[in-house]
C-alpha cells in the first residue's frame, strides 16, 4: 500500500449562519463569521489516495486523471464562489471547514476508480485545517 497526496488551491467566500437559531444566537456562536455579506479565504486542499503500485506504469494513480477529477468535482465548483449561495450542499449546511472536507470527500470518493481515497485535508488558513477520513 502506498499513499499519494495531491495539493491544490481555491479561493472562496462564505458565512456561518444557522436559520434555526435566532439572530442573537448566530452572532454569539459564529462571531465575525456571521456577517451575511460573507468573507473569504484562500483554501489549500490536500487529497491523499492509497493503493498498490501498478507494475506496468509504476503509478498508484495516474496524476493526470486525479487532477482532472479534482478540477471538475471540486475546483470548478468551489473556486471563486460564494459557497453558501453557489454550491448546492451548502444551501442547507453551514460551509465550515469541517463540512467542506466532508463535501469534498463525498464528491471525490465515487469518482475514484483506481486508487482509494484515504484523507481529505482542507486548510482554511496556514494555522487551521480539518482532516476527514470518511468516518461516519
Amino acid at each position, binding site marked *: 500500500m502506498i499513499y499519494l497526496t495531491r495539493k491544490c488551491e481555491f479561493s472562496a467566500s462564505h458565512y*456561518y449562519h*444557522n436559520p*434555526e*437559531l435566532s439572530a442573537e444566537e448566530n452572532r454569539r*456562536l*459564529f*462571531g465575525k463569521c456571521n456577517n451575511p455579506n460573507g468573507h473569504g479565504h484562500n483554501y489549500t486542499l490536500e487529497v491523499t489516495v492509497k493503493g498498490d503500485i501498478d507494475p506496468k506504469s509504476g503509478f498508484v494513480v495516474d496524476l493526470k486523471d486525479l487532477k482532472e477529477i479534482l478540477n471538475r468535482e471540486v475546483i470548478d465548483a468551489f473556486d471563486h464562489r460564494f459557497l453558501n449561495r453557489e454550491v448546492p450542499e451548502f444551501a442547507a*449546511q*453551514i*460551509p*465550515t*471547514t*469541517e*463540512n467542506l*472536507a*466532508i463535501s469534498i470527500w463525498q464528491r471525490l470518493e465515487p469518482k475514484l476508480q483506481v486508487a482509494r481515497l484515504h484523507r481529505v485535508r482542507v486548510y482554511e488558513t*496556514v*494555522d*487551521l*485545517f*480539518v*482532516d*476527514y*477520513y470518511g*468516518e*461516519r
Partner: protein
Amino acid sequence: MKAYLTRRYWFSASHRLHNDELSEEENRSIYGKCNNPHGHGHNYALEVTVSGHVNPSTGMVCDLTELDSVVEREIIGCYGHEHLNALPQFEGVVPTSENLALQIFDILKRKFHAAHLERVKLDETSQNSFQFAGGRELR
C-alpha cells in the same frame, strides 16, 4: 461524521538541555550545543488536533474560541517567553521537546473537554518536530 480539526499556535521560550545527575563531560557529549549553560531559544509551533462528530447545528467539531482560550491560558500563558528550566514543572526533568510535548498533551487532556484530544505536534525548528498522541500510534 467524524472530523479532525488542527489548529497551530506559536510561542517562544528558552531552555538548556542538562541532566544534573550526569557529569559535565557526559552532558556535553549527549547534548552538545544545547548544553550551553546560558541557554538558547526557539520559536515553537504547536499543532493541537482534536476530533469529534460534526455538530449539525454549527457545522463544527467544537467551538474554536474555546480551544484558543484554553491553549492561550494553559500553554502559551505558561510557557511563552519563559526559560523552561526555571519552571517548577521542569524541576528534575530535562526540557527537551519530547518532555514539553508530553506536558502539553497532559495539560490539554485535563483542561479541554469540548472535543477529543487526538495529538499534539511540537515543531522545535522547521527541521525537528515531535508528536504525542497519548501513547497511541499516529494515524
